[in-house]
């Protein structure tokens, strides 16, 4: 048991959670404006490819992140235009974006990286890790806080920024209003469409970071469908946290923890397929629990007894 639960599990949790965290933030902001961002997966996948490609071409992880963000925003804007301007069903356009991302990255890896399936060349420049020399001597600090990837720190900062934005600023108040009663916002002179575009752009930024972190921070490679449902895990975490960034973060940490524990179970002779299955089963369970809690608490609030 001690092989599974030790000090390194804490960082392993953070590590597994961060890609899902960015994905979750990507759909948290849109959900506040009542847009179910099914395309999270696609935004993330596209930008993860763009990140790797830029990193290989320019040798700069910073430019890579920047380009990943740009591509994320472009994908989010395609969704936004389709949904807001041309009244596309949000689920349909979301799935369309996912399929598009799958196809275009498959094409891109063949055309631009000259391989099919997986690319993990040594010329991928990853996102650096922060090494604090002062932590070296303390086992706890070293295991838990040392050598974090920059984007892992950024993820936590983003949680706070997003929370502040939504619950402390006028803009956040307006977003929450648009999500709950758009006519109330419109009659208050708020340009609902413009606000929705703004929300989608921020969502694209988060999705871009999610992708960049996945291929340059979490792992240094790109593979077909590398996101593997992480976008949907992000949506599950968003539901778990009831669109509150802080609670959402908590949700992703649970997912990360399960993922890390699963990885350690492999040495116990459990078939690899079951270990690979574990995060998905767990995510569904959490999603169901979150919705069950929501419906029962709503029912309780409405009860006359």
């Amino acid at each position, binding site marked *: 048991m001690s092989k599974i639960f030790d000090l390194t599990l804490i960082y392993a949790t953070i590590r597994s959670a961060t890609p899902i965290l960015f994905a979750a933030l990507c759909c948290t902001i849109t959900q506040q404006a009542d847009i179910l961002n099914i395309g999270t997966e696609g935004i993330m996948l596209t930008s993860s490819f763009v990140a790797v490609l830029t990193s290989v071409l320019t040798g700069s992880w910073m430019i890579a992140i920047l380009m990943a963000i740009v591509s994320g925003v472009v994908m989010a804007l395609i969704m936004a235009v389709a949904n807001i301007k041309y009244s596309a069903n949000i689920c349909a356009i979301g799935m369309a974006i996912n399929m598009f991302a799958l196809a275009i990255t498959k094409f891109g890896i063949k055309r631009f990286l000259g391989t099919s399936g997986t690319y993990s060349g040594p010329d991928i420049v990853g996102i650096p890790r922060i090494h604090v020399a002062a932590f070296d001597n303390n086992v706890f600090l070293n295991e838990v806080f040392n050598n974090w990837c920059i984007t892992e720190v950024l993820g936590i900062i983003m949680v706070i920024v997003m929370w502040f934005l939504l619950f*402390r600023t006028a803009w956040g*108040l307006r977003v929450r*209003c648009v999500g709950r*009663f758009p006519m*109330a916002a*419109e009659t*208050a*002179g*708020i340009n609902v469409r413009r606000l929705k575009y703004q929300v989608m752009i921020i969502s694209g930024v988060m999705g871009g970071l999610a992708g960049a972190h996945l291929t340059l921070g979490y792992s240094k490679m790109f593979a077909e469908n590398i996101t593997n449902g992480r976008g949907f895990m992000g949506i599950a975490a968003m539901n778990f946290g009831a669109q509150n960034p802080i609670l959402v973060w908590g949700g992703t940490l649970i997912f990360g923890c399960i993922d890390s524990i699963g990885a350690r179970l492999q040495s116990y002779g459990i078939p690899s397929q079951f270990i690979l299955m574990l995060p998905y089963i767990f995510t569904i369970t959490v999603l169901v629990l979150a919705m069950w809690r929501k419906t029962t608490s709503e029912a309780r609030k409405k009860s*006359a007894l």
Partner: protein
Amino acid sequence: MSAENYVVEMVDIEKNFATVKAVDHSFFNLKKGEIHSLIGENGAGKSTMMKMLYGLYQPDAGVIKINGEEMRDLTPGKAIEKGIGMVHQEFMLVNELTVLENVILGFEPKKGVTIDFDEARKKIQTYIDDYHMEIQPDKRINQISVGEAQRVEIIKTLYRGANVLIMDEPTAVLTPQECVKFFEILQELRKDGKSIIFISHKLNEVMEISDRVSVMRAGKYITTVDKKDTNPTDLAKLMVGRDVNLHIKSGNAVKPGEVVLKVDNLWTSGEKEISKIRGISFEVRAGETVGIAGVDGNGQSELIEAITGLRKVEKGTVTLSGKDITNFAPKKAREAGLSHIPEERNVRGLNRSMSIEDNLVALKFDLEPFTKHYTRNKKEVRKFAEDLIEKFDIRPKKADVITQSLSGGNAQKIVIAREVDAGGDLLIAAQPTRGVDIGAIESIRTTLENVKKDGKAILLVSADLDEVMDMSDRIVVMYEGKITGILNAKDATKEEVGLYMLGQAEQDRKES
């Protein structure tokens, strides 16, 4: 009077929705410091006209001037900037947010990048003090009453600096007593130099409060008159275009018979705190109409949903013709003899994407002769539908028209035709004439009267107090999910019912 003195001028306005002319060459103007009523039937175009002034719709033709300045591409934002405020019929308040957040929305005072709630609170307090409007800034909207929500709406417009207040059917949600208080607020606002547009179809209120009255009918502007030069009868004629008798009095031909519906100590959940049903008991007998009166949102909808099986009964029983139907699924409740005209016609009552015939046959499409060997027989459906269309005078007289395009009155006739044809012992009619034109109102009320004559029991819910008083034999008054009084319709006065609607009578009883 020269044009400069008008705060608002709307000239030769036209507005089409798809193929319907909602507003057709209409005019409206407003002087500073006056209360100007805009009256007309449902669908006359009053709301549409005012929504154009508020920038929610763009007119297809015509000129809108505010303070003499011609406005183009008006948006709500611009309208607010020009001092226009609107209290919508359906309140524009976000349930999950607090009163304070709702009021400042869009015009948030800021401290750095955050919202300055203290500043906002201070500013709102001045309006509360000035106009004696009690509101609780830190409550969430779903915790406050309809009357308070309306005050929040008024403060919202004042907070945004409105000089012109548009009130769309504001008294529909108030008791007679609350109306008096509301009119006092209007008078005070006028004294402070605000100009007020009062949209209504209740002529006695219009006569009480207005300086001038404009009339619209079927999208067209009819005329504008000074209050002192007119009277309710003339206005009614202008509104409808002919003489009308709206007071189809409940006939006493049938002597009430057996108890059909018995509701005993019913408890059920509610969308709002004040709409939770807590211990309601009453009976409806064969051949009588029992009307439920009360301000909207005091649990009437929840009560009906609980009886019809659409909402879970938490305690108590519902008995229909001697059979316990508590928590029956809607289908079983219908089989037990319950018919239901729901209040939300376009959501519950009709499937708007389907044709007239499919809506008419919706209760029995899977039975013979409409379905044989699992396959639907469309010929039988057509025959059945054409029969009902003829009988209930539904227009257009084409069974395959999609109901989306129908007027409120004809849409409602479809629902009523289907439910009356189902022939249950009990007919529940919730807001049967809401949003329908006067011609349809007459026909719907006559239909209900005939159902009663056939010896069926009718439970009528209506926010229109006149309708309840005219149609019912007995009146059940609801306030905050409880019954405050059961009255005999013949002896009751409007003021008396109004008192019960305020929950006043109950308090008196408690005190004495």
